């Protein structure tokens, strides 16, 4: 009896080793034909890339060129579906918002249909790198770290970070927080990165989706919510009982469309498009159509960026 149990453990442990290899190696695809192909591919790949393993990820082209997109007649654009008024879905199931307004125009000028892909903040880079979308238009702040992973086009909006709290307990400085105070952030946003780096002692409560974070904030699961200041200002205007105690935090940044690293044809087209849109003051029109109701006209010139020349 004992001996059998022992052999079981030993075989179990070897199973773990094998299983980990199998899982991470072949992604547990269960169809036998594809695993066979994959195995071949993997072998040839590892032979090819023995010299420069670092570039292996970048050389595998996980994107569609401008021509391929036009040919297929459909462009996949990653947007938020729960971040009003920038990207959300109305009661008829249609995507709306400042980012979507731009997406609609891009589709029109390319002459293709748009397939909206609902994204969360943390999956934006992943979606581009794995070719699941052609463009991300999800309020994507340009940062150095991100620029190493994806290619940003010209910016179309200004942004900084902001912190909002309930108006009966306003946080005006991040240095005043007690040990138990938790700040709500959304996973994969610049607010998360900034707070992790600059205030490592502050406890963060992280959510995947905007809708979840906002509901948790309303429910007072955290003392404050840190995000793009555009977003928290909009929240304080749209909902009663909240105050933006810290309207600007961190550096002034910009928001831009992003494409998969190396997708030059699409990037060049986007930049030209953004310049020609800048010449017709498109983003002022966008602001007036989607953001005016929330922000009023006072933020129009500080938020909007119109590009007049190529980088």
């Amino acid at each position, binding site marked *: 009896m004992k001996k059998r149990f022992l052999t079981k453990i030993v075989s179990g442990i070897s199973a773990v080793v094998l299983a980990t290899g199998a899982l*991470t190696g072949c992604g547990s695809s269960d169809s036998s034909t594809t695993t066979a192909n994959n195995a071949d591919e993997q072998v040839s790949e590892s032979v090819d890339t023995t010299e420069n393993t670092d570039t292996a990820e970048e050389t595998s082209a996980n994107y569609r060129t401008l021509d391929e997109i036009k040919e297929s007649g459909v462009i996949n654009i990653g947007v938020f579906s729960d971040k009003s008024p920038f990207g959300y879905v109305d009661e008829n199931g249609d995507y709306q918002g400042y980012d979507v307004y731009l997406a609609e125009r891009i589709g029109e000028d390319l002459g293709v249909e748009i397939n909206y892909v609902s994204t969360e903040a943390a999956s934006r880079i992943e979606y581009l790198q794995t070719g699941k979308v052609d463009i991300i238009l999800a309020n994507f702040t340009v940062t150095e770290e991100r620029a190493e992973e994806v290619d940003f086009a010209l910016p179309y909006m200004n942004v900084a970070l902001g912190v909002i709290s309930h108006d009966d307990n306003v946080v005006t400085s991040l240095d005043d927080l007690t040990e138990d105070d938790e700040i709500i952030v959304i996973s994969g946003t610049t607010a998360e990165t900034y707070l992790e780096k600059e205030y490592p002692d502050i406890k963060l409560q992280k959510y995947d989706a905007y*809708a979840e974070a906002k509901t948790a904030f309303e429910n007072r699961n955290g003392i404050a919510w840190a995000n793009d200041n555009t977003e928290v200002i909009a929240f304080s205007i749209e909902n009663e009982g909240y105050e933006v105690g810290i309207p600007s935090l961190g550096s002034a940044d910009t928001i831009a469309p992003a494409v998969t690293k190396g997708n030059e044809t699409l990037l060049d087209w986007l930049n030209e498009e953004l310049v020609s849109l800048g010449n017709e003051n498109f983003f002022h029109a966008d602001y007036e159509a989607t953001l005016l109701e929330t922000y009023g006209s006072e933020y129009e010139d500080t938020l909007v960026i119109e590009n007049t020349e190529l980088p």
Partner: protein
Amino acid sequence: MQLMGIELLLKGNNFLRMLSGLWVAVRISLVSVILSIGLGLIVGALMTVQNKVIKTVMRLYLEIVRIMPQMVLLFIVYFGTTRVFGINIEAELSAIIVFTFWGTAEMGDLVRGALISIPRHQYESAEALGLSKLQTYLYVILPQTLRRLIPLSINLITRMIKTTSLVMMIGIVEVLKVTQQIIEANRRTSPNAAFGMFATVFMMYFIVCWPISLLSKHLEKRWSDR
């Protein structure tokens, strides 16, 4: 305000959108169950084979399915495969692959159990009648095991439908995500919608799964009596 969000169901296409979100979940599980039954019959037969290599592979497969949370498998297939092989698998297809991978193991194990419970003399009589191994499996053994498998596979459908709530995490817009979108779009006018809306989703899942699990229980009882 008083209705805690229930009123949003009547606004625009909201309720229809939630239903079609639920249908996405049901569709994924139905396709996966059908594939699992087919593949499970093969895998189950393989599990009874007395070959060391096949045996080890099957054990390993079963053990992986037994321990790995479906969510982990979803992430590996959806995000991992592209990274390792450069193949882009769509979200819904990833979900079907993972659910079939899981369902096949469960069905296979059930088929194996059913197969070894069939008395030896049946195989021998079939052989004596001149039936080949495949014929014996298809015409003699399989029909007898099917009756035992049907209630269990119906049960598997409900478990799969419940597990489909996870696909929201890999970006599939199903009922939970639609619900969040509705809560978000109406935050200003219905700040308490989270209560009513999530309660609605809870009941929707219940209304779909409860009859199916009753049916499975009923069939199991009825067919085990004979």
